[in-house]
């Protein structure tokens, strides 16, 4: 099972040697030719949309434009409207709070499970790893239907169990109140993301030498002390990257939120950035505002991703 500890989303960098000696004999243009197809498809499907969004976010889209009139240029008016709109700030604050809370809970549980894995014997460890892998492998939409069923207010097993414990959860609708809506969303996102964290951190933990730990133990360091002064410093690089990736990923929870909203909650009270863009663009055909929010999301993601990318490049060069 140790072979499964490499997260699928993390590229295999560590063992790869540096690129071998450059080829000088061949034509200078060959590498560019090899890159061409990839560059063309990226320009078409990502480059053009990004430029379109930047331009559109500075135009005005009203009723007339829905009937084909060209959109007038308004420069930064949309951004000004957007950021003076209190609802936008509600959505932004909601997204950030949801994202940080979920990411923090995920990392704490993931680290806990990783520590647990390194402290138990083979059989329970493999059992835990298999169960985590199964949860990890679930396609997001299938997972969402299952969770919708688990939390179903009529016959969901969660209400049933809570009621049988003497709590009043008969026909309790979890998705009606925004707060409990986000609690459910948080539980689901955490359930999906913990396996990645647990496996990555566990892979990091296996690198911590047992000799150092034993030496510390003989010197009288207690469990919490070993954790604080030896284990955590040694896995800090992994922890940092995993936390960063969780934050980036938990900002983009469109699928989960959308599929919970489909179950019949009020969209305006439960929108995060992704569903807000969808509502503006697809729902209201206000492409200018949708583009402005999209540009905001892209800038936020790039700013956060920068640290991750720098880390990858550094690891690549060493």
């Amino acid at each position: 099972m140790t072979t499964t500890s490499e997260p699928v989303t993390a590229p295999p960098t560590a063992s790869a040697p540096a690129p071998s000696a450059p080829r000088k004999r061949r034509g200078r243009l060959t590498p560019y030719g090899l890159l061409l197809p990839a560059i063309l498809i990226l320009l078409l499907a990502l480059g053009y949309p990004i430029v379109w969004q930047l331009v559109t976010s500075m135009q005005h889209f009203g009723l007339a434009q829905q009937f084909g009139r060209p959109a007038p240029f308004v420069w930064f008016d949309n951004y000004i409207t957007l950021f003076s709109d209190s609802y936008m700030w509600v959505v932004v604050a909601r997204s950030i709070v949801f994202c940080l809370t979920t990411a923090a809970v995920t990392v704490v549980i993931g680290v806990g499970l990783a520590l647990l894995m390194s402290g138990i014997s083979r059989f329970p460890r493999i059992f835990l790893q298999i169960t985590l892998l199964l949860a990890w492998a679930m396609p997001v939409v299938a997972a969402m239907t299952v969770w919708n069923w688990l939390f179903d207010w009529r016959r969901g097993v969660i209400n049933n169990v809570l009621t049988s414990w003497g709590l009043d959860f008969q026909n309790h609708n979890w998705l009606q109140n925004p707060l409990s809506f986000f609690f459910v969303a948080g539980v689901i996102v955490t359930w999906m993301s913990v396996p990645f964290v647990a496996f990555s951190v566990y892979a990091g933990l296996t690198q911590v030498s047992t000799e150092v730990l034993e030496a510390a133990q003989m010197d009288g360091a207690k469990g919490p002390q070993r954790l604080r002064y030896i284990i955590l410093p040694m896995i800090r690089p992994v922890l940092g990257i995993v936390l960063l990736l969780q934050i980036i990923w938990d900002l983009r929870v469109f699928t989960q939120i959308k599929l919970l909203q489909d179950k019949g909650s009020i969209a305006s009270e439960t929108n995060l950035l992704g569903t807000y863009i969808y509502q503006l663009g697809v729902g209201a055909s206000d492409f200018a505002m949708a583009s402005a929010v999209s540009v905001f999301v892209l800038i936020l993601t790039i700013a956060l991703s920068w640290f991750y990318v720098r880390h990858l490049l550094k690891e690549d060069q060493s």
Partner: protein
Amino acid sequence: MTTVAGDRKLKQKVRPGRILLGALAVVLGLIWVFPVYWMLNSSLLPNVVLQSSTPTWLPFGGSFDNFTAVVNGGTFFPALGMSVVVALVTVVFCLAFAFLAALAISRFRFRGRTSFVLAVLLIQMLPAEGLFIAQYKLMGSLGLLNTVIGVSIIYIAAVVPFTIWMLRGFVAGIPADLEEAAMVDGLSRTQAFLRITFPLLAPGLVASGVYAFLQAWNEFTVALVILQENSSQTLPLWLRGFIQQSASRATDWGQVMAASTLVAVPVIIFFLIVQGRMTSGLVSGAVKG
């Protein structure tokens, strides 16, 4: 001798705690896998049983009726066909494009190489949520809404950056010396590549191909805006239809869970394959012999 005795004492002291921790791990594992289990369990039970006031924990006496009902429902096969075609188109083009690009960045030094790698890594982080409105307008103006080509173009572009990065690791792991040695032995460059490098690369291509397949198979956000017509639905959109229905009327959850199982099982199998392949030592031993 004293250290051995000390060790033994230590282990004896730790053992009961270790068993407790092991039990805790098993309990946590059961909690974690419960939703997956509940999907399978419910998929085998008839709706009458699922609608009773006490949950049925084990699917004894269950049947595959839900599966036959879902499969014969008339909407499953078109969605399956759509998903398979989109996923295959994505895999083929993504692998071809990514392989060429990976070759370029791991076998050549050229101006703009570092910027390209940087761009690829940044692009791979861009969220679909920040782009899908523009992509929807793009495909609309190209007349490619509700088509395999339209959605595939976006999927290829979404998956190609990470695939380049993944394959680059594999290509770089194969020493160019190996290829050159074969050329010294009289093979042409193409032959050397096809006979030496390509077989070594196969596991990497499989892993990346499965990765691309899973991304295309599971994708929801882009599909939701590009494939709005019922006739062009992929499986995730088809599944979403069941959730929407459950908002307004009593749902046959047995059938919904059977549908989810049908979508999830191929993914789980492929996922386990790619997990194993990611870390296997690929070329270790190829040079030594």
